[in-house]
């Protein structure tokens, strides 16, 4: 039979174990969670690449998105699932955000299927979500080089032999890369919900350096949107 001391120490041990487990669980969740819903990547600069926008004009990613919150996604307009879900989710959240926040966000969509994604098609498809979204095209080798530089898998084209390759699918990275202030880089995988974007985007924008005249009368106007050739107007 166990003595009371043994029982007491057994209880104390159990309690200590329980507290350690609970504490470890809490500690782990605190360590693992960041202040953002996206996955925090190694900090670094924005990638430097130049691709053609829907008007055929060169678009320099680093220069054009400087001091802005840049959302970069590689996809294609015939994508049946991931691309439209990501674009629709971001567009829906942008519509809810105050103009001052929205004005600091650039959504850049790089086509991984330049063969079918003609400038017209790209403009029409992106415009269906949000006219301010920027569509870029380039040679497949160049697009793959940019993806590899960003640590993303390169594009894979899957053809169905049954239809002679007329309708094909394009395998591509499913995450949206976000470039914020001070080299903050985040990845938002497929499964990111509108609630996540709605929480993180204003937070990320709030950390951007203020731009000249921000908060004053005649606040800074957004950069011209190459998709439309005119600036998006506040709602």
């Amino acid at each position, binding site marked *: 039979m166990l003595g009371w001391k043994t029982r007491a120490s057994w209880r104390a041990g159990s309690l200590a174990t329980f507290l350690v487990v609970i504490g470890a669980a809490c500690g782990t969740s605190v360590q693992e969670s960041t202040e953002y819903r996206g996955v925090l990547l190694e900090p670094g600069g924005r990638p430097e690449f130049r691709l053609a926008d829907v008007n055929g004009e060169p678009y320099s990613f680093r220069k054009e998105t400087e001091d802005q919150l840049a959302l970069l996604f590689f996809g294609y307009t015939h994508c*049946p*699932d991931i691309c*439209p*879900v990501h674009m*629709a*989710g971001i567009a*829906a959240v942008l519509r*809810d955000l105050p103009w001052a926040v929205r004005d600091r966000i650039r959504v850049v969509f790089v086509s991984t299927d330049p063969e079918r994604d003609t400038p017209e098609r790209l403009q029409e498809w992106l415009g269906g979500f949000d006219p301010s979204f920027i569509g870029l095209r380039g040679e497949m080798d160049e697009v793959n080089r940019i993806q590899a530089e960003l640590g993303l898998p390169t594009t894979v084209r899957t053809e169905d032999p049954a239809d002679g390759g007329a309708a094909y699918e394009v395998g591509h990275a499913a995450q949206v890369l976000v470039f914020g202030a001070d080299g903050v880089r985040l990845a938002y995988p497929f499964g990111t*919900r*509108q609630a996540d974007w709605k929480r993180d985007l204003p937070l990320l924008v709030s950390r951007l350096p203020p731009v000249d005249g921000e908060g004053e009368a005649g606040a800074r106007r957004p950069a011209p949107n190459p998709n439309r050739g005119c600036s998006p107007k506040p709602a």
Partner: protein
Amino acid sequence: MQWWCAAQSSAWTWSWQAYPGVWLFILAIGLAYWRRSRRWSRAGGADGDPAAASPTAGTGLPPRGRPAWFVAGLLCLWAALDWPIGALGAGYLAGVHMLQFVLIALVSPALLLLGIPPGRPDLGRRTAMALKVGSQPLIALILFNLIIIVTHLPAVVDSLMVSQFGSFAIDVLWLAGGILFWWPVVLDRPARPYFGYPMKIGYLILATIVNAGTFLYLTFSELPVYATYELAPPVYGLSARDDQRIAGILMKVGTVAVLWTAISVLFYRWYRRESVEAQTTAGGGSDDAP
């Protein structure tokens, strides 16, 4: 091969898909009805119970048309569970999911119960006892609304709709809840003398009010509440938020349409019964007149 409709990650196509689990489920209900009907008719329906011996016992309908009601209920259930409604509702559109709810929990159970033949069903003691308790109007109403609330919680929908078993569980819960809910309205067995037409009408009106919470939650949520439908491959470019609003409106409109149709029928029957009784009384009075 999929046995039951569940959420899928592939894009929606209009190419037909077989769901053998749905067919077996429908077949099992049909066979059970056929076997029980034969047993009831062989037993003469009455089973020694004078109330049950009446040709209109139970639902108040003549016995000849009842199989047609049951078949209509079964077809309705099949349409809601099988391709394309079942597949679209399981993993693509919240609006179609809500259409499924209206068909499985509201329309189909009412039609199935209208098809129950007269006579006392041989259900076994435990089932009969469970039905007797569960079909008490207050208990049935509470259970039904509890099922509605629980099966529309985002955590429940998102965790169950991804698996065939989970999706099956939601469908069966809706059907069982609907049967319990309609039982005291459609069937007069076990006898509930206190639950006449005015009480039945009140019961149904109360039911239209109770589910308003779910309707408001879905229709006026700022963000999509179900990950299943928010992250589903889009169908015809319908946005997740619009789809959710359609779901909320469909829930309200569908529920109100079904319940108010039932209320109208009950009101008409009540009026007709009162008229017949008044005529009988008036007819008796004139015979006695000098």
